[in-house]
């Protein structure tokens, strides 16, 4: 993992001191709210429905056990004993006091963390494949490029006042676990025709009120020229992005208005300038960063390499192996998903105790490393196969062995109207009731892969456009209603879901979801997943049954 050097640490410490002074002046009345608000947002501090909310950056979703313990400590000391892992691999605390915020940032800085780039019209915290560095078939660990982008983008003077926020995601795999094509810029690490490392750059994806799947703007960008190309891509956006209308200010609107070919042409023209400006990272600095991501010393033994995993006759353990354990690039090791979606639970929430348990288990089983997924789960990336049963036993004792990763109860849900000042409807109670309705694990496994994603407003933090089933909460004359979308995907086969028809009341939405699932079960071919079935038959059979009773 990347370790701060003295410059990184000095920057973060200076930001803490600066914010401490700003908060002190605000509380003393020397700084009015209209001046203070943008300053607190630069430090991830929002004002939400019930209190201040602090959004802490988890760069590319990677945490050490020590950092996870600090997140638990903050939840316990300054919040109400829990945090919420978000769809951008961050963590949010919901009950923060303004007067405590500088101390929290100081605690975070002590473990090389901060809340910079978690708000405002800047390049936000970069996200990546949560299997980075351990995924089977990976071209290169995307955290190397992510860390380079993090350092380049932090406090970038030219891009600190963009027309709107800007999100970059990176993957090193064909299989997309980072929703690359729904980002302002999505980067896929590939090999060019000569077998050299290169980047495919997608620009102009996004969700919100105008969803777009990003087009490919640059194929096989040479690896050493990443920063000059990103600079060019951002410059064109910074110059022509719509600053007059917040709803049209994201880069996706510009790319759509110009057309991908014209946008690419303008970026290419700009790039001929930026690549002469010595923006690209010197090779020795690239090597310095790369060295932090050298794989650990793996030491699989005969027990790890055995065909059968010990304990796999236990049905519950076997179910968990099927859904929550994934192939590792090193034989004898496995990647494990810790589901934060217990039946009736709040998607993405973790208590202080749970965070501490995860940190301890990371030390015991996973070389001290944890990942946060954009699907609001946690990952232990380096588990020996022979220790899977022991890990599962420990997880079970902590209530973290829910065997539902990728199944219907593994629901993404934004905080919704229970916490968020932008929301129009609640998301979490809908997720809870769906997970209760489908609590039977045998039924979940029979249904197979099905991703439900719920947003409480059009801003789409719950990724409803990319759900196999998407649910969007709306306010209809003071009442919560829920629209259903079908056929979205945030994976490599990215697609935007289609709205089925009139929305459903809070009372009716769970029945509606069950109706869709039953329709699927009735029409699927052997082995056909929900998404594949929807793509084969279209939405008509689902609509017909869903609205027949109305």
């Amino acid at each position, binding site marked *: 993992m990347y370790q701060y050097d003295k410059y990184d640490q000095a920057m973060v410490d200076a930001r803490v001191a600066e914010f401490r002074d700003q908060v002190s002046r605000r509380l003393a009345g020397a700084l009015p709210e209209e001046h203070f608000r943008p300053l607190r947002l630069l430090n991830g501090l929002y004002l939400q429905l019930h*209190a201040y909310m602090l959004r802490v950056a988890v760069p590319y979703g990677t945490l050490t056990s020590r950092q996870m313990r600090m997140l638990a400590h903050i939840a316990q000391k300054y919040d109400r004993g829990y945090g919420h892992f978000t769809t951008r691999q961050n963590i949010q605390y919901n009950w923060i006091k303004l007067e405590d915020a500088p101390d929290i940032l100081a605690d975070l800085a002590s473990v090389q963390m901060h809340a910079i780039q978690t708000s405002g019209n800047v390049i936000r915290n970069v996200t990546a494949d949560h299997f980075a560095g351990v995924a089977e078939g990976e071209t290169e660990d995307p955290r190397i490029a992510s860390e380079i982008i993090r350092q380049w983008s932090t406090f970038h003077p030219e891009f600190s006042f963009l027309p709107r926020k800007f999100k970059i995601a990176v993957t090193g795999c064909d299989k997309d676990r980072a929703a690359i094509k729904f980002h302002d810029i999505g980067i896929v690490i590939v090999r060019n025709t000569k077998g050299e490392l290169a980047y495919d750059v997608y620009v102009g994806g996004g969700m919100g009120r105008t969803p777009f799947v990003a087009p490919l703007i640059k194929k096989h960008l040479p690896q050493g020229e990443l920063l000059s190309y990103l600079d060019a891509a951002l410059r064109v956006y910074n110059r022509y992005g719509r600053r007059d209308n917040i709803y049209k200010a994201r880069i996706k609107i510009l790319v759509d208005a110009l057309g991908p070919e014209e946008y690419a042409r303008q970026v290419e023209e700009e790039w001929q300038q930026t690549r002469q400006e010595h923006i690209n990272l010197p090779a020795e600095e690239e090597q310095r960063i790369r060295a932090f991501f050298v794989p650990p010393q793996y030491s699989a033994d005969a027990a790890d390499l055995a065909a059968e995993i010990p304990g796999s006759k236990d049905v519950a353990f076997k179910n968990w192996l099927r859904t929550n354990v994934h192939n590792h690039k090193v034989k004898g090791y496995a990647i494990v998903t810790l589901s934060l979606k217990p039946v009736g639970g709040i998607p993405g929430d973790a208590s202080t105790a749970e965070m501490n348990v995860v940190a301890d288990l990371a030390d015991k089983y996973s070389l001290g490393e944890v990942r946060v997924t954009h699907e609001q789960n946690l990952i232990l990336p380096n588990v020996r196969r022979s220790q899977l049963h022991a890990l599962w036993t420990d997880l079970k004792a902590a209530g973290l062995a829910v065997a539902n990763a990728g199944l219907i109860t593994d629901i993404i849900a934004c905080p919704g109207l229970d916490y968020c000042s932008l929301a129009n409807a609640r998301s979490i109670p809908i997720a809870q009731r769906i997970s209760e309705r489908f609590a039977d694990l045998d039924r979940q496994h029979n249904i197979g892969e099905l991703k439900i994603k719920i947003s409480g407003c059009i801003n789409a933090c719950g990724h409803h456009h990319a759900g196999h089933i998407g649910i969007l909460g709306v306010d209809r004359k003071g009442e919560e209603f829920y629209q259903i979308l079908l056929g979205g995907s945030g994976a490599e086969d990215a697609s935007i879901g289609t709205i089925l028809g009139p929305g459903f009341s809070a009372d009716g939405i769970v029945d509606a979801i069950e109706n869709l699932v039953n329709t699927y079960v009735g029409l699927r071919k052997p082995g056909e997943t929900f998404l594949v079935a929807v793509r084969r038959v279209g939405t008509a059979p689902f609509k017909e049954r869903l609205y027949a009773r109305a």
Partner: protein
Amino acid sequence: MSKESKEFAKIVTANRLRDGAVVFLAAQGQWSEKTDAAVVAKTSDEEAGLLATGVAAVKACEVVDVNAIEIASLTTREPSRLRERIRQIGPTVRPDLGRAV
């Protein structure tokens, strides 16, 4: 001219600057965490008066984000809109963290 109406009933809410807690404007310019202490405006003129008190409290660095909200009941002072009811009681999914606790 004030708009007199049987239905007109509003209270003023804000977030306390220091900790962000949801508060309601009570008598003598005090801020309370309980709606039943809130002063009710029954005319638009009264609402404007309460909001002026709120703006003064913003300047005095007591609160931020001052708004007048409709209430559904003069007895309970329960807000009309769901959003404000949730602000009043806390997240519906964590009753253990609500205002009664």
